[in-house]
């Protein structure tokens, strides 16, 4: 299990694959002020939501590198042959993927928040929301990645599958920024995230078994 998580981190680091979502996230954060204009208060009001959208789209990028290469190269077969359950493999991938995606995104949110002129307490709520919400995003990427692993040119389909399922994370993540902790947004964000994290390994496991036939 540890070996699998480490392998996941190594794959993410090799060839800069883990950098892509970060650069994308920062790019959206840079472009947004160009689109709405350099109006400080307006940016501060809408910036948090825009950053959540950016995080959502950044989560979509690694979807085709999580399972498809391992399915094609026979790595999943060899793991199954050694008695590792598909769910275990998926759980290890989830852990490895979140480690290479969640914390770096939270780090990238710092310069992104500066570009949006977000006040300090809003930044804090954004970081808190990302801490709680990115495992859910990673789980969605995992599940959709497994479901589309055997398909050719699965990118667009993956987007169609993933984005609607991410709506709860987006609502409560942005709600947390807007209304603060009192409105229960944090609890609901946590609940949505937990549900996705708990369900994704089983969805991915079943999808991988089906892809083998």
């Amino acid at each position, binding site marked *: 299990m540890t*070996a699998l998580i480490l*392998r996941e981190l190594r*794959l993410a680091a*090799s*060839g800069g694959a883990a950098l892509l979502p970060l650069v994308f996230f920062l790019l959206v954060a840079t472009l947004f002020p160009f689109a709405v204009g350099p109006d400080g208060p307006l940016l501060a009001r809408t910036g948090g939501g825009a950053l959540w959208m950016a995080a959502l789209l950044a989560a979509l990028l690694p979807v085709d590198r999580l399972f498809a290469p391992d399915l*094609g*190269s*026979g*790595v999943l*077969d*060899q*793991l*199954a*042959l*050694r008695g590792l359950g598909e769910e275990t493999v998926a759980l290890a991938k989830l852990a490895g993927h979140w480690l290479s995606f969640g914390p770096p995104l939270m780090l990238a949110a710092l310069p992104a928040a500066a570009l949006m002129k977000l006040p300090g307490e809003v930044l804090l709520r954004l970081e808190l929301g990302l801490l709680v919400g990115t495992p859910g995003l990673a789980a969605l990427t995992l599940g959709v990645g497994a479901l589309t692993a055997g398909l050719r040119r699965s990118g667009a389909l993956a987007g169609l599958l993933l984005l609607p399922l991410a709506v709860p994370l987006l609502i409560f993540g942005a709600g947390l920024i807007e209304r603060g902790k009192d409105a229960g947004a944090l609890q609901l964000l946590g609940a949505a995230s937990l549900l996705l994290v708990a369900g994704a390994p089983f969805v991915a496991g079943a999808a991988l078994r089906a892809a*083998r*036939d």
Partner: protein
Amino acid sequence: MSGDGLLKLDTVTVRRGGRVLLEDFNLLLRPGHATLLTGPNGVGKSSLMRVAAGLLAPAAGTVERADAALADEHLALDERQTLGRALAFWASFDDVSATPGLEAMGIGHLADVPVRMLSTGQRKRAALARVLASNAPLWLLDEPANGLDDEGCERLEKGIAAHRIRGGGVLVASHQQLALPDAETVALG
């Protein structure tokens, strides 16, 4: 697994894409023995191999097997890693060292070369080196001699012979002539 065999297929039916490839197929592989599957392309040798490995569920019948090592057309090594490290990843799962396998297949000098730089024959040797290094009693080899030169085939034959002396069993599907003394040949199709 009952003591009498390493691999036991009992009235197995293999179906792929709605087409029945094999019906009521029986096979028993005992320790120290080798079985060679032959037959034309598309007859179901590789599917049978995947059924034996437990990667494909048979449409009917039962499959019992001991711990197995599989070498098929998929290399399952990370292309960016060096060969030594890539094989060590799998060796750590099998609780063995990867080096004896590398030496046995004559690719010990390639341990520091990235997997993506290897030739077809070297890749095949790498996949076989993983099997040779493992301590699984059952070897499943799907076209193991594809892309191997004469020297590679010899090394493979030697590895198989040593494995059988240790009490291991080998199921081979091959079109190439491999020296497998006293192997039972099962012609499909």
